[in-house]
Structures are given as structure tokens and as C-alpha cells.
């Protein structure tokens, strides 16, 4: 319970800080719109098969924009050694990770919800066919990105080349979750019944979330303590 | 098929060569540093 209280306090701190300055929120949102725009130019958005790759495009935009958010996650604690204060506080590493991951997840989800109608407009896609399932996939995939992103943000926070190393480490690790999210989103954008392997991909995504959240909670203390 | 086998051996040979080059480089660095320490003493 104490862990959850500490995590909630840290999440609220991060969210308040971000909502006041909106530095990563604005850049992340505009970057995801730019990515959607560029990919709309790369593909023929008028064709009927846009639902075959629409999920891929959407999640690419989300993946690129989430890097900007999670990069700030631990980087904002660097000035004035705030990270050392946080580590020395009674809050455990797990609650620190949980709080920051939840904050990153909340910010990401906000951006995802704004991008969804924009995606619908740019690509002429009916995304509200299965809205609740789609939101479920956005939540699961978003948590995967927030979880892995926060851990690697902690890992790379002291590096000179942080902005370069974070995406380099994050994306290969995220591939299973991204693949599952993209496939499930494609299925949910298509008309008609769900293909038979829908459940398999959903299991992969949920399994990924569980495994990496557990690993992250166990190992983040080791990363942060110097 | 021969290209496939050749590439398998080739990659391992390249790695062995890289290890050898690194070995030589390390030896040179060690020599230079030992000389530097001797001179400074």
C-alpha cells in the first residue's frame, strides 16, 4: 500500500510538472502528427487496403512520440540532483518506477486519443468499429511502451548520448509488443469478424506487459542506486 | 551452398582477425604507458 501511495505521489508530481510546462507533451504531439502526415504521403491513403497497414502506421507514430515523453521521465530529475533525492527518499525503486511509468502512460494515452481521430481523417479509416477493444489495445500497448521506456530512461539517464541510446535500446526490446499492437489494431480496423489468431496476439501483448513489468519492478532499484 | 559455408567461416575468421588486431593495439598501448611511467619516475 505504501508503495502504491508513493507511486501515486510521484506520478502526480510528474504529471503536474508536465502539465504546467507542457514541453514534452507539445513536442510529442506535434511529432506524432508530423509522422502521420509523412507516412500519409508515403502510402496511398485512398486505397481500400489502408486497413491492412493502418495499425502499423498508427503505432509507429505512437512509438516515435513516446520516446520523447519517456526521455524526459528521468531527465527532468537530473538538474539539482533531484534524482539522488528521490533515490534517497523512503520511496522504493519500485514505487519510483511505477509512478514515472504511470505518468508517462497517462501522457502517452492522451496523445494517442488525440491522434486517433487525426489518423481517421488522414487515412480515411473508420476507427470506431470496435472502440472498446481498440482502447484496450491502446492501453496494453501504451503500457508496454511506458514500462520499457521508463526502465531504459533510468538506464540511460547519465549518458552523454541519452537521446540516441534510448531509442536504440528501446525499440528492439519493444518489437513484440509493437508487432502485437499493430496486428491487433489492424484487425480491429478491418470490417467483419476477428481472425482466429486475435486471441494469440492478445496473449502475447498481455504476456509481454506482465513479464516486463515484473522485471522492471525487480531491477529498477539496482539501476538507480549508485 | 558454398557461399553459405564460406560466409559462416568468413564471419568467424573476421572476428578472429579483429581479436588479433585488438590484441596488438592493447600491447602497443601497454608498452607506451609502461615507458611513460618509467620516464616519469
Amino acid at each position, binding site marked *: 500500500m505504501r508503495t502504491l501511495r508513493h507511486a501515486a505521489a510521484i506520478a502526480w508530481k510528474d504529471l503536474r510538472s508536465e502539465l504546467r510546462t507542457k514541453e514534452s507533451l507539445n513536442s510529442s504531439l506535434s511529432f506524432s502528427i508530423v509522422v502521420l502526415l509523412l507516412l500519409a504521403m508515403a502510402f496511398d491513403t485512398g486505397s481500400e487496403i489502408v486497413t491492412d497497414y493502418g495499425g502499423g502506421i498508427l503505432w509507429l507514430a505512437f512509438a516515435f512520440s513516446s520516446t520523447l515523453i519517456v526521455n524526459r521521465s528521468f531527465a527532468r530529475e537530473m538538474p539539482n540532483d533531484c534524482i539522488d533525492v528521490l533515490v534517497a527518499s523512503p520511496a522504493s525503486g519500485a514505487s519510483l518506477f511505477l509512478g514515472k511509468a504511470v505518468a508517462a502512460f497517462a501522457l502517452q494515452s492522451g496523445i494517442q486519443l488525440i491522434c486517433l481521430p487525426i489518423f481517421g481523417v488522414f487515412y480515411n479509416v473508420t476507427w470506431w468499429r470496435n472502440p472498446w477493444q481498440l482502447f484496450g489495445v491502446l492501453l496494453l500497448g501504451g503500457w508496454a511502451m511506458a514500462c520499457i521506456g521508463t*526502465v531504459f530512461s533510468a*538506464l*540511460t539517464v*547519465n*549518458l*552523454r*548520448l541519452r537521446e540516441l*541510446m534510448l531509442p*536504440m*535500446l528501446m525499440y*528492439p*526490446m519493444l*518489437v*513484440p509488443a509493437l*508487432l502485437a499492437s499493430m496486428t491487433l489494431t489492424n484487425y480491429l480496423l478491418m470490417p467483419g469478424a476477428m481472425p482466429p489468431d486475435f486471441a494469440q496476439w492478445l496473449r502475447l501483448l498481455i504476456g509481454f506487459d506482465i*513479464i*516486463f513489468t515484473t*522485471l522492471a519492478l525487480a*531491477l529498477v532499484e*539496482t*539501476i538507480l542506486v*549508485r | *551452398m558454398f*557461399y*553459405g*559455408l564460406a*560466409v*559462416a567461416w568468413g*564471419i*568467424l575468421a573476421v*572476428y*578472429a582477425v579483429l*581479436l588479433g588486431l*585488438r*590484441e596488438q593495439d*592493447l600491447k602497443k*598501448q*601497454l608498452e607506451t*604507458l*609502461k615507458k*611513460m*611511467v618509467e620516464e*616519469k*619516475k
Partner: protein
Amino acid sequence: MRSKIVLALGLVGVPLLLRNLYVILFNLPDEMEQGPVYRIFYYHLPAFFAATLCYTTAMVCSILYLVKKSARYDAIAMACTEVGLAFAAVNLITGMFWGRISWGIWWAWDPRLTWALICWLVYFGYLMLRKAIDDPTERAKNAGVLSIFAYVSVAITWKAIEWWRTQHPGPVLSIRTGEQRIDPAMEQMLYVNTLALATLAAIFVITRLRQEEVQREIDALRRYAHAL
């Protein structure tokens, strides 16, 4: 002592490799459906086993480092990861050649190939992370954590051949499937070549480990020289 081990491994491994190459090329018969191209498999699969062995050792040593804080474990983890990457590259590229001949394409986004590539990229990221951190303790700690995360991709690559049945050939080894799907002589050669490649991997790891220790000695000497 260590050079004696390397010599012993070399005396076992190198003749075995050469003997295997001779047997693979000249003694073993062609495979029924694929013809002679299947012989690439005798390096493709053993290289994957050698790489997995290296990655597993790296993961175990990373955990040992995080528990015991001995720099030696970190050095072994690094050496094993580097050698594992080399063997994983052999696995990927021999697979590409086999695919080009058998399927007509260099690459397919089949789950097994995708996972093998992801695995390679993740461990390459491990080496990049090590290069980016200057402080040795910080480097060892962070690399150790990344190694543990990265091992999940190895575990999934290993299982991918069972979970997904697609373009890539399915499992054939009797120890995995419980039945004899390929000729016993072929299966035996796979194991013998795995042993040969694993011996080669051990030689590489020991050499790399020694170089890492020399590097640490150089770093210490450099600090001493600048302090004088």
C-alpha cells in the same frame, strides 16, 4: 594456465572443425527434398546453439555480478555477449543464404527470423551501452540489468520455432520433438558440429576476457601515469 586451456581447446576444436567440414562436404548424403544446399544447416543451427550458450552464460554472469559485485563476472558477460553476437551473425547470414536458395528470397518477416534479428539488435545495443558509459561500476551495473532484459528475447527466439509454424522449417531434433525426424547420422553431425563451434566460442571468450583484463590494467596504469 589460461593459455594452456586455450591451447587444449584449440587442439580439440580446430581438428574437429576441419574433420566436420570434410564429413559435411563429402561423406554425408544429400537431403531428400533440398539437395546439397541443406549442408548450410550444419553451421546454421550449431551457430545458434553456440550463440544461445554464450547469451545464457552472459545472463548468468550478469546476475552474479549484480549479486556479488565482482568485476570478473562483468568481464565474462561482456566477452560472452560479443562472441554470442558473432555466432548469431553466422546464424542469421547462413540462414539468409539458405533462404535465398530454397525460398528465392534473402529475408522473410517470419517470426523466427524476426526474433533472431531482434535478439541480435538487443545485444548490439548492450555493447553500445557499454561503450557509452565511462565509469566502470556504473557500466557493469547498467549492462548487467540490460543483459537480464535482453535474455527474454533469447528465450522467445528459442521457443519461437515451436510457437509459430510458418515459413521457417519446424523443429527436427529428436531431443526436442521426441521423434526421429531426420537421419540419425545427420542429427549426430549437428551435435558434433555444435560441440566444435562451442569449443571455438570458448577460445574466443577466453581470449576476449584476457584482453578485457589487459584493458583494465591499461586504464589503471593510465590513471597512475597521469597522477605522477
